[in-house]
């Protein structure tokens, strides 16, 4: 049976506010699903529930047939869920290479090796450098993460997830705030990942041109509820999406939706 990621009636409440409301959805490999919706629709919260940063109030999450609803974030990462965060979430005073090396270390289970200096672990270093070259950060490897430009920090964030070699890639607005010339590096990476038909890729994205070019499927969240799910052309054309999110003029829609 191929790998699946499934949420069943997934719900989280913050006091009286239901941020994610009974979302039932199945994700399959070889399919890039874009998750769209206005700001505050619960997209990032939905991600946080799946990757374990938040615990569901009710409902369940099944990964590869196993119920992971009760598992901690580290356990889910070890099971193969990879997450890149929307707000840059790095190790600021460690170098770019050290950031990635830590992810490589986590992926290959080097958790408690305390008797050898890290330079002896050429395998970790080589792998980290390879990933940095993929995201075009090779020349910045010795710089502290905090000294990177915003765009480079976003790329590093993606590099950390790649280093984990996950089965599920969860991108949360990977190109937000990037300058125009930096965007293609990340988009090409995602397009490359799509070639591997064994991976599940989830992408939260506001830019409709990006969604159109990459997504095989779009789901729409609105006020925490799943309101549309289907092929990009159908979803974008559906009245509920036109009304809830896309509007007639996308630029003003994004502004007024906030």
């Amino acid at each position, binding site marked *: 049976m191929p790998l699946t990621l499934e949420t069943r009636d997934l719900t989280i409440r913050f006091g009286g506010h239901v941020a994610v409301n009974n979302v039932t959805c199945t994700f399959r490999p070889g399919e890039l699903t874009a998750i769209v919706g206005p700001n505050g629709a619960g997209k990032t919260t939905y991600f946080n529930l799946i*990757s374990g*940063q938040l615990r569901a109030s009710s409902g369940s999450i099944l990964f590869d047939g196993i119920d992971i609803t009760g598992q*901690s*974030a*580290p*356990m889910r*990462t*070890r099971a193969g869920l990879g*997450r890149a*965060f929307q707000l840059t*979430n*790095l*190790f*600021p*005073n*460690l170098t770019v290479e*050290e950031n990635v*090396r*830590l*992810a490589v*270390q*986590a*992926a290959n289970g*080097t*958790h*408690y*090796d*305390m*008797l*050898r*200096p*890290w*330079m002896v*672990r050429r395998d*970790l270093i080589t792998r980290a450098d390879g990933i940095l070259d993929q995201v075009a950060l090779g020349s910045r490897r010795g710089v502290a993460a905090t000294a990177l430009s915003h765009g480079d920090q976003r790329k590093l964030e993606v590099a*950390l997830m790649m280093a*984990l070699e996950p089965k599920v890639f969860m991108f949360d607005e990977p190109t937000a705030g990037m300058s125009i010339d930096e965007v293609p590096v990340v988009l090409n990476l995602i397009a490359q990942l799509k070639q591997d038909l064994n991976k599940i890729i989830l992408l939260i994205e506001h830019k409709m041109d990006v969604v159109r070019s990459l997504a095989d499927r779009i789901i729409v969240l609105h006020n925490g509820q799943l309101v549309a799910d289907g092929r990009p052309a159908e979803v974008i054309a559906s009245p509920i999406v036109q009304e809830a999110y896309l509007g007639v003029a996308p630029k003003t829609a994004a502004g007024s939706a906030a």
Partner: protein
Amino acid sequence: MMILSGDPPRSRVLTLVLVLIILALAATPFLFPGAKALNVAAKICVFAALVASYDLLLGYTGSVSFAHTMFYGIGSYAIAIALYGMGPNWAAVATGIVIGLPLAALLALAIGLFSLRVAAIFFAMITLAVASAFQVLASQLSWLTGGEDGRSFQLPELLRPGTVLVSKNLFGFEINGRILTYYLVFAISALMILALLRVVNSPFGRVLQAIRENRFRAEALGFRTVFHLTYANCIAASVAASAGILNALWLRYAGPDTSLSFSIMLDILLMVVIGGMGTIYGAIIGAAIFILAQNYLQSLMGVASKAASEAGLPLLPGLLHPDRWLLWLGLLFIASVYFFPTGVVGRLRNAGGAKSGSASH
């Protein structure tokens, strides 16, 4: 330089200072005559290791512990009680080590698993509570610990001052059991500092730094951080207990004031901050500066005060009176924290880094 685990001092001045301190400590028995100099040197060795182990916690993982003197005390008392109860033989030394080290490590394991799951402040509070309880316990169980008086004991024959190993007419100076004990303290402290340097520069050590930087992200990468923090706590506790063992062996005594008092905890904190957190090397520098000041500032001031009054200067003799030494020590600390917020090591490294940076561009 694999002995330094690939983490050299990275500053010429810092290297020079470290080499000077280590050479001075290594040669103290021959360079500086008298019991006081040797006592001060032994204390610097013990505290350098103790402070380095605290740096592993504070500087590398960012967790604040107030139980470090407790582990130091466990080591001290274990060896003291064993030698007091079993007599001055090597079996007693071994018993003290075999009981003291695992006891400290197990206690650290329990505290860590219990309190490192949640916010850092909780760990600080728990360590404070456990350390206070231990202090009360040590003074109450006087049949075992000697209460407020502590326990004095004798060392095995080989380590006693009366044991002459190399007589004076051979080299011109005598090597006795006291000097052998000093070198034991020196060597074990040095080994422990090198071991800590290895731990902080290992892949495991990088995870500790990652947790300090962003624990949330470390968890998201798949690290179960509570275990990393707990292991670090156990390592730090074991080194602290070993330092306690060395201290008790050197003093031939363990008591509340020398091994458990809360003022030792404050001293450790000051030394780690003065030397530079998250560097390990800072421990050596912090311990050397602090203990030298603690021991010699008073006599230095006595000399200065006398000179000032003989020269007929107003006000100065009073200000420099030896009784005011704590005031000056305090001012020294405020000044050092103000001028070296990253500690002596951080300051020297930054200065060196700026120079080499401008040279390469």
